[in-house]
């Protein structure tokens, strides 16, 4: 079964594109996801995804009025709206300093409401399904290039500003004493996150973006012994999910995003069970030694 999948993978262009796109996204998503998790903002990708959807729905609505912007590619307006959503979160965060999640609830609600209104006005509610659940199998060459550019941006940022990113993420207060401009960092991080979320939206869909970013990290956190090891393990888990998820999607004819996320969850469960069994074994060993 897996052999025929591999055979088709190298013979059919759309399959190969999907796999390459999946592998690149599989590396970017947990990389950004690890920072989001350290900053305790796991819910943020969902929030930005909903606001990105507003941009897409507005773009579709404008095209029904005969107004074409960004060469009728809704993704770009999605990126802009996602950035606006990110800046709104920062704005509300300053008003509710100790309740980070309130700002996200406000923005996610606004995003959901506005996108529902504009999708309805555009009379293109049929396309809503693919935006909610994504489809990596329909990835075009153009989109693949966009994913690669995003990956290069993320990679360069991590290489150049890795120290600063980790300092602010682990401890905002003390990062100031390392000469880091926290406000500028917050805005830059929000912009990069908005771009990544919007790019992920086409393949994973609004409802599954968070899963691709956070679940591999959640599983890796259980067995990682350092930040570096946790990041590497989360990328490995993510890539395994992409491969086996696409295989499942291809074999069972099910949505690819959902299949990838399901494999992610299975890995998380396996890790949780293995960790529990190991702890129980260690406790039993200690009890034996005490006797």
């Amino acid at each position, binding site marked *: 079964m897996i052999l025929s999948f591999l055979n088709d993978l190298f013979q059919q262009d759309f399959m190969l594109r999907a796999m390459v796109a999946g592998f690149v996204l599989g590396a970017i998503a947990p990389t950004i996801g690890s920072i989001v*998790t*350290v*900053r*305790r903002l796991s819910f943020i990708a969902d929030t930005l995804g909903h606001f990105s959807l507003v941009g897409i729905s507005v773009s579709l609505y404008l095209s029904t009025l005969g107004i074409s912007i960004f060469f009728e590619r809704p993704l770009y307006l999605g990126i802009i709206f996602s950035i606006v959503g990110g800046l709104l979160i920062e704005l509300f965060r300053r008003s509710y300093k100790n309740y980070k999640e309130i700002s996200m609830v406000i923005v996610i609600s606004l995003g959901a409401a506005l996108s529902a209104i504009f999708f309805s006005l555009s009379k293109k509610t049929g396309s809503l399904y693919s935006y909610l659940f994504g489809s990596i199998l329909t990835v075009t060459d153009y989109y693949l290039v966009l994913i690669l550019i995003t990956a290069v941006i993320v990679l360069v940022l991590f290489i150049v500003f*890795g*120290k600063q990113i*980790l*300092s602010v*993420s*682990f*401890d*905002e*207060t*003390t990062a*100031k*004493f*390392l*000469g880091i401009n926290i406000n500028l960092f917050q805005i830059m991080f929000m912009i990069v996150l908005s771009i990544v979320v919007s790019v992920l939206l086409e393949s994973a869909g609004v409802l599954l973006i968070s899963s691709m970013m956070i679940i591999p990290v959640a599983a890796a*956190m259980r067995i*990682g*012994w*350092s*930040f*570096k*090891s*946790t990041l590497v393990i989360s990328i490995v888990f993510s890539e395994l999910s992409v491969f086996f998820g696409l295989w499942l999607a291809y074999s069972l004819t099910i949505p690819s995003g959902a299949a990838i996320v399901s494999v992610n969850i299975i890995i998380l469960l396996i890790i949780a069970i293995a960790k529990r069994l190991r702890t129980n074994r260690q406790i039993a060993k200690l009890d034996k030694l005490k006797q």
Partner: protein
Amino acid sequence: MQIDIRNLSFAYGHRSVINGLSHTINPGDYLVVQGKNGTGKSTLIKCLLGVNSVKNGMLFLDNQDINSFKQWTKFGYVSQNYDGFNYEFPLTVQELLKFSTITKKSEHNYLKLLDEMGILEIVNQNINSLSGGQLQSVFIVRAMLNDPEVLILDEPTASIDKQNTEFFYKTIGELNRKGITIILITHTDSLENLEYTHVLNMALDLTTTLCTKEEAKGVDEL
């Protein structure tokens, strides 16, 4: 660095915590800020660090108004109970210290400092496996990494045992002798083993008394 506090007042809503405090901390001073819980010690530190914005009174750092002050790398800070730090995500001591360095020189500094603190053996350990005392020592090393001019320590010995507390105060005393200004906040420690120069007492009724070590000793003897 000179820290000049002029008629500083601070309130959380209608609850006043600091009322008209004035004091100058000179380079090389070792100031102990003492007082019970709720007397505004940590609030004062948050004002000094620019976390709480000062609306009543003035604060000057090296003759520069705190609102326009930019050279925060001159400060080292250890917060109370590691406030704000996410120590649950896997991270080794080495990783933490490496990303907390500013210069190449400080990158080489961390092993020496860990050795001096007697915790070199934990360099590759995950921070979430450390005891409270070890973690606090790591944060002290982090605060000293970039050769700060001022070291602010907010209840730094809260989770350290007695033996390590004595060692810690000895280290802080040595740093002060090297010329680093120390501001130490405490609500429990006796001043007996400290090599401080001034002590600021903050009371629940918002009154503050400032005295030198000699004056404080005189009060104790009475």
